[in-house]
């Protein structure tokens, strides 16, 4: 008898669990956002947009992934709704029905070197340290080769701009490509011991917001709110970069960052806006064309760049509606 009551207990508990799980799913109207990194000052603008979207009625939850590729895979696998990144290769190769809806930041990276080099033309044959093979900085190196007509020497890979700056300062490399924040840190800490090589303008995306096209269409209302909020934050920020810090929710993930980080936010956004890191119009067609050109040269997209279609990579409707 006791045996049966125990079995009954197990069956009942399992049933209860299943019911609870289904009930959980039924209420899962929240949109699930996959961040490509843990919250830092650099995603302050994004979180401010989330706050504004929430005020407009958007219900969301976010999960931070260890890197961009994992965030992309989570969206491809359907565990997440919206992700961060530039999944051009995934869109073309795996025929995944994901589309980009908003450009979050441009590929603003800076070649920095020891005093050995002073312009891009000097870099023929120079060994260079980059983030990862086929990653963003690798694509920048490819395009520099293409535009300037040089060929870099051996490429070595060390993930993380902050690590490459350390390697540069320690003399382990003479040449690397780093992001805006780390370039500024280098100048701040070492003055004129290193060179920041003049670089041409780049409009291609570093981070963009993307999601499954079917999901976007099924949740058009939520996506519209989100894109509208992002656009309003970007336009306000470009007028006044200090808005990010002022409006950041002190109890949110960005507001809870250490004081020193928060104190540096005004400087970071002022530099970023001045450096053209953000597009006030969310990228749109201009960014899509720049991306297709850039990622073809970088080797992420294959085939003739002229034959690529914007509709295969971008879904403009939410942005167009928000711009009205």
């Amino acid at each position: 008898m006791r045996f049966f009551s125990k079995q009954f207990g197990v069956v009942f508990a399992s049933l209860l669990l299943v019911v609870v799980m289904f009930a959980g799913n039924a209420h899962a109207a929240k949109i699930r956002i996959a961040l490509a990194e843990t919250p830092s000052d650099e995603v302050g603008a994004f979180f401010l947009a989330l706050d504004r979207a929430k005020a407009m009625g958007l219900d969301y939850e976010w999960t931070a992934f260890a890197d961009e590729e994992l965030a992309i895979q989570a969206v491809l696998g359907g565990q997440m709704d919206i992700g961060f990144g530039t999944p051009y290769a995934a869109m073309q190769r795996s025929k995944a029905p994901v589309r980009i809806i908003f450009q979050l930041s441009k590929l603003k990276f800076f070649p920095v070197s020891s005093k050995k080099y002073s312009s891009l033309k000097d870099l023929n044959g120079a060994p260079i340290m980059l983030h990862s093979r086929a990653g963003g900085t690798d694509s920048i190196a490819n395009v520099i080769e293409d535009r300037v007509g040089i060929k870099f020497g051996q490429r070595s890979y060390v993930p993380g701009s902050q690590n490459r700056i350390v390697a540069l300062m320690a003399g382990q490399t003479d040449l690397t490509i780093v992001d805006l924040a780390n370039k500024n840190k280098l100048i701040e800490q070492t003055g004129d011991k290193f060179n920041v090589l003049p670089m041409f303008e780049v409009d291609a995306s570093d981070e963009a917001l993307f999601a499954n096209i079917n999901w976007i269409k099924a949740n058009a209302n939520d996506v519209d709110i989100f894109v509208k909020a992002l656009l309003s934050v970007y336009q306000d920020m470009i007028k006044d970069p200090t808005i990010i810090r002022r409006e950041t929710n002190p109890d949110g993930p960005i507001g809870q960052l250490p004081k020193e980080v928060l104190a540096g936010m005004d400087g970071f956004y002022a530099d970023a806006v001045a450096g053209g890191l953000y597009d006030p119009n969310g990228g749109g067609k201009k960014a899509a064309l720049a991306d297709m050109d850039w990622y073809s040269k970088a080797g992420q997209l294959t085939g003739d760049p002229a034959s690529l279609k914007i509709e295969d990579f971008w879904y403009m409707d939410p942005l167009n509606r928000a711009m009205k």
Partner: protein
Amino acid sequence: MMRYRSYLLTFLSACIVFGSWEIAGRIPVSYAFPTFLETIAAFWTLLKNGTMFVAYFETLKPLVVGVLISSFVGVGIGLAIGLSRMSDWLLSPIFVVMQTAPLAALIPLLVMIYGIGLTSKVAVVIIMAMPVIVLNTGGAVRNTPVSIVEMAQSFLGTRRDVIFKIILPAASPIIFAGLRLGVSAGFIGAILAELKITPTGVGDIITYSRSIADYPSMYAAIMSIILLAVIFLNVLERIENFLFKGAKHVYASD
């Protein structure tokens, strides 16, 4: 017949695993999950164009160095731990800590100490492989049946005789079990190092294929490591059987 049965069962289990993989890939469970056949095709391409060999040349460097150091030093330390209570007190805790430490979280520390080169990768392999070898050896030596040690002593065997003729042979099956576990942990360590420190070798194929969304190649690289580890462990088992005949496995159902 017995012999065939074991092959048949192995074949059957492989069919079930690869069959489910193929089905999962065809559904597909995710756009990032290739089918088994696509993966095999990518594997073949990587073999044919030589990418795989070049990659393994890189990956095997920290693996071989790390596993060799772990095996020799590990068995040595394990013996010391098993034979002397003082060394047990002194050394065991270090290896228990090493075994339980969350290695992936410690990698930045290793990079700070050893830099981004081969040394820190070897260190990761050693941290993964050595504790299990040391602790298994120590345990095996300590658990040598007292009666046969006493027998050797009553035959006036020296301490050296007791260690080399009694304790080591008696402990060898467990020492080898430890070596096998250590080597497979070493494989994990080598790949972890390549994914977490600097992408080289097989770790580079994995990260690169993931970057360009060439998922079949990514899974082919992962599969190749598993394959290599299985082959290596089988070889180790053969060596063990050759060295210590009679210690063959017997199954209760046979």
